[in-house]
């Protein structure tokens, strides 16, 4: 009975939060003189309306799945990785570098480029992990700082060594590309690429590591209670560094989605892509589980792509979706309220 209640509650919070977010988004539209019904109709049309929109939604969801996994994996070990954005950028750069500078058959080149991106992201994640394990420096602050270091450093490297006309690098070689003419044709020539396969594989990998290996058990134990884990003979420091490495690897892989899939090159970024920060929303809404993250990423990817149609067809600025996402995060994070209420009604219930 209690188990069912727990399960139900875990699904209830995200669903209620999304509905509340959309509801308040609708109220904001009403207040600012837009028609929320036609706007949301346009939004839905922008997600499912035709093959192109659907393809774009899935394409936008692929990096979001990976960045969501990155945040969630660190979260399971009790770490908050806000540095996904930076890890994504170095992963993007590394994959594009491999994509441009190596001549290999596709079966080797493509995995090599993806792994290079993941490795770069892992390296970027290990630094805050090491500082946390060794000097007890809070990872939230270091990862934020590492984001900016990544932004300026990747820009600097592109400008100094890899610059092509148009403030970007050259295109990667065909053999390192995730692009798929077949998927593009299937979706009325959207930019859909094989990245979604990589993302779902990664979700499987996360599930496997966390729930089917000893390492995963240790990582989760550290996340629940560091002191108890230490007492039980688990090397807490090692697990913190490892968690940040794996988390960073997912983030780096998210970067390869952009580099090898959507764009086939890397631009000089004036600001962050936002994919990394969205990953926080995705993992939170997906309750840090593989399946939840895939669903949440598809939802947010859909909202982002659908908002384009919402703007063109109903005249509502795309930023409305940003507001809705912010509200959803607030509601999920404040689930204490719902939790508290349900506990009042369950005698002896514990949080």
């Amino acid at each position: 009975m209690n188990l069912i209640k727990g399960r139900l509650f875990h699904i209830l919070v995200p669903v209620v939060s999304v509905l509340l977010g959309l509801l308040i988004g609708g109220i904001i539209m009403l207040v600012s003189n837009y028609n929320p019904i036609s706007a949301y109709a346009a939004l839905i049309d922008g997600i499912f309306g035709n093959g192109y929109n659907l393809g774009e939604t899935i394409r936008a969801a692929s990096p979001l799945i990976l960045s969501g996994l990155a945040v969630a994996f660190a979260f399971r070990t009790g770490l908050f990785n806000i540095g996904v954005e930076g890890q994504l950028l170095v992963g993007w750069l590394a994959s594009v570098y491999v994509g441009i500078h190596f001549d290999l058959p596709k079966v080797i080149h493509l995995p090599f480029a993806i792994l290079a991106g993941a490795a770069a992201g892992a390296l970027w994640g290990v630094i805050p992990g090491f500082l946390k394990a060794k000097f007890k420096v809070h990872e939230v602050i270091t990862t934020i700082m590492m984001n900016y270091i990544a932004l300026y450093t990747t820009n600097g490297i592109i400008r100094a060594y890899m610059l092509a006309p148009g403030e970007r690098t050259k295109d990667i070689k065909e053999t390192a590309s995730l692009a798929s003419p077949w998927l593009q044709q299937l979706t009325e020539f959207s930019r859909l690429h094989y990245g979604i396969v990589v993302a779902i594989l990664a979700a499987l990998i996360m599930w496997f590591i966390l729930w089917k290996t000893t390492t995963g058990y240790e990582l989760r134990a550290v996340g629940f209670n560091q002191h108890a884990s230490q007492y039980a003979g688990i090397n807490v420091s090692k697990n913190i560094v490892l968690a940040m490495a794996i988390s960073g690897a997912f983030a780096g892989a998210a970067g390869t989605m952009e580099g090898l899939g959507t764009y086939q090159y890397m631009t000089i970024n004036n600001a962050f892509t936002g994919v990394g920060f969205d990953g926080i929303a995705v993992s939170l809404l997906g309750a840090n589980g593989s399946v939840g993250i895939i669903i949440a990423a598809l939802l947010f990817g859909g909202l982002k792509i659908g908002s384009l149609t919402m703007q063109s067809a109903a005249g509502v600025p795309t930023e409305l979706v940003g507001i809705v996402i912010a509200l959803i995060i607030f509601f999920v994070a404040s689930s204490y309220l719902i939790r508290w209420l349900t506990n009042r009604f369950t005698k002896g219930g514990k949080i």
Partner: protein
Amino acid sequence: MDFFQILALIVPAAIVSAAPLILTALGGVLSERSGVVNIGLEGLMMFGAFIGAIFTHYGEQWGLGGGSPWMSFVVAIVAGALFAVPHAVASISLKADQVVSGVALNFLAAGLSIFLTKKLFGAGQTPDIQERIGKGDVPVLSKIPVIGDLLFSNAYSTSFVAVFLAFVVWYIIYKTPFGLRLRSVGEHPMAADTMGINVIKTRYISVIMGGAFAGLGGAIYVASIAGNFTGSTISGQGFMALAAMIFGKWHPLGAMGAALFFGLAQSLSITGEQIPLLKDIPDVYLLILPYVLTILALAGFVGRADAPKASGQPYEKGKR
């Protein structure tokens, strides 16, 4: 180019870019000293910048002339305070994860301010403001040799406001009963509660005051540096203020010093090309300098920085 000319080039530029950082970092100090982590500084600053830009614009239309930016500062202070309320409610009353709530605040600020900009002006940016904060010489002080030229001539009045407020915040936090309560709920809320201090109320006041400061910081950024508001006006200044707060060890004057130093690094990356010695250094190094230094400070290489003990933890009465 002699040494003094270099100083005359760098120092005023550093002070200008530091003023918004100082104020936002002070907002962070107020919030975090009371035990509420505020990653939302960036969002608060962004919302303040948006309010600053539109109300300076409206002030011009209402015929306020040179008073328009100052009127916008007042509105931005109120707006920043109000905008901090969701973060306060979520992280203090609803016991949400304070970092998550701060991230949500950043999302909300970015979405809401650009949404409203498009709604009000039909474009992704606000109109350029005409009445910027002017430069001017401070009477008497600008006549002091060397220092007068560096600090008090051709200076923005907002910079002095920022420095003055840093001392005000220092006075509040360290010399008033309220400041003692603020610090105590950030270090050990249960002990404070036992002594009859209202933990929840104190934290609410601190977070909301923090929002007011960050809002003012954003508005001053628009009125003195940016000149209008777009989606990219505030891109990272809030996080840099966060870094300044940490580098300044959660102390108002330390935060001010760190903000001035980061302002220096920022201005060096812009004016560096005119300075012989720095010309050859790629500006990447100057751009990443504040962030690298913050990490080093946290790791204990540049003087250890420790957060207030209870920061990040929601307070639950009766919990052990």
